[in-house]
């Protein structure tokens, strides 16, 4: 039997609460292994974003343990977390680009500020340029985020998240508030990043088609397009959250077969669409 892949992110009975409100995450446990793509779905306020922020150490759990790259990061001091955070790229829901900096400065920010990453000054511009050309926005280097459209800002944020080539990527609602064409472009970039650099990813979304794309398509470096693969062709696991709890964890086939009324609301079935 083959050795299971290394664990990159593990939650053990994690509870997060902002008193006096009820817990936002309630005894949540899951294990993300290298090479997996996790699609996290759930209603608004179910705790999806909090999962990503807790994984990154931006929110500390009230109980339980979070392991990143097999290292317990629970309740570590902010300074101690900087090293391990440099191995993770994160796309925030509203892009979170720094308004006062140009696109190039935004993308260069992790290279300049993450102590664990040492890159010679002369290679910095090349790295920024490569990262921006990955999202096809090389021409926007000197622009400010306010001059870009919502979709472009999201793509710049992806360029900033991947510029350091992190092995683990966290995407918080990458398609929220975007038109279907731009949303598809963003998801295609996420699949491209995953397959071109063999990264592990957590994608928070409430759109089933996003999960479907991630689970059934693979980036073809020769054609530069996404090719369909058979079911189970990618290591994609779906997670559905409800009120801070994990109510479903499994592959796409299991998700589509799930009879739970809450879980099935997130699945777009052809027969339901026709009805």
């Amino acid at each position, binding site marked *: 039997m083959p050795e299971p892949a290394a664990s990159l992110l593990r939650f053990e009975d994690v509870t997060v609460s902002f008193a006096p409100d009820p817990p936002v995450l309630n005894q949540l446990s899951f294990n993300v292994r290298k090479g997996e793509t996790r699609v996290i779905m759930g209603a608004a306020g179910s705790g999806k974003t909090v999962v990503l*922020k807790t994984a990154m150490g931006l929110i500390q759990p009230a109980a339980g343990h979070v392991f990143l790259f097999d290292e317990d990061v629970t309740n570590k001091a902010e*300074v101690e977390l900087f090293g391990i955070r440099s191995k993770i790229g*994160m796309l925030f829901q*509203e892009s979170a680009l720094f*308004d006062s900096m140009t696109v190039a400065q935004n993308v260069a*920010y992790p290279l300049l500020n993450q102590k664990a990453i040492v890159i010679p000054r002369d290679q910095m511009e090349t790295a920024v340029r490569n990262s921006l050309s990955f999202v096809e926005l090389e021409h926007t280097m000197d622009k400010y985020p306010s001059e870009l459209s919502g979709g472009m800002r999201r793509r710049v944020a992806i360029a900033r998240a991947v510029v350091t080539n992190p092995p683990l990527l966290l995407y918080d609602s990458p398609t929220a508030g975007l038109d279907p064409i731009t949303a598809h472009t963003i998801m295609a970039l996420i699949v491209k990043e995953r397959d071109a650099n063999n990264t592990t990813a957590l994608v928070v979304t409430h759109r089933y088609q996003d999960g479907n794309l991630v689970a059934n398509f693979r980036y073809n470096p020769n054609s530069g397009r996404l090719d369909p693969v058979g079911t189970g062709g990618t290591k994609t696991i779906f997670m559905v959250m409800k009120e801070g709890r994990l109510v479903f964890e499994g592959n796409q086939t299991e998700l589509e077969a799930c009879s739970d009324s809450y879980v099935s609301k997130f699945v777009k079935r052809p027969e339901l669409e026709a009805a």
Partner: protein
Amino acid sequence: MLDTLKGPIQAVQEFYELTGRAIRNVFRKPHYVDDILLQMESIGVGSVPIVLLTGFFSGAVMAMQMGRGLQDYGQTGRTGQFVSIILVRELGPVLTGVMVAGRNSSGIASELGSMKVTEQIDAMRALGTDPNQKLVTPRMIAAAVMLPCLTIIDDFIGMIGGWIMAQVLFSVPPRQYWSTVWRALVWNDVAQGLTKPFVFSFAVSLIGCYYGLRATGGTQGVGRATTQAVVWASIAIFVLDFFLGRIFLGISQIGT
């Protein structure tokens, strides 16, 4: 009762934590020199016009009112003395502090608040930067350097305003005015006049940062943070002024 007190006590604790970290970061790397210079330009140079205007007119008004009072005793020649003491000891530091609080505490709170609600603070942390070190410490240092400088400008321009009014309304000779202005001041006044803005600068910058960094709830939350920052920074200036005034009064009494 305990629940009612919990909120304010927690707020005070959080404020002291922020202050402690900001001061500790002064001695820790990395030092964001560019940000310090940028903030000095924003807090210091940017505030010069309002300081010039308020300083000039406050000095002028003081000379006008004092001169009128002194006229009854035939002592208009001493107008400069009163203008000088009141400006250097009290009005210069407090007026400059309140003006800079209105302009910069609000600016800091709205800038940091916007960054907080658009997740830029979280992004900063995720990308290997301590927001306190990058955002709070530079503002604190910049305010601590610039507020005493602005106060000196305010004091001087106030004296000029007083001189013009003393000359125009009460025909006080310039030589007499400036000589009484100079002679009225002792070292205790100068020390008081520079210590006060230095202490006020922490209220101006740190209260702005505190309310900005705890802003929640979108644009409405940013607006609320901005208002609270200005109100509390202004109140803190008056309260600190009272205690510092009392301390310096005690020092001067020991000296005599």
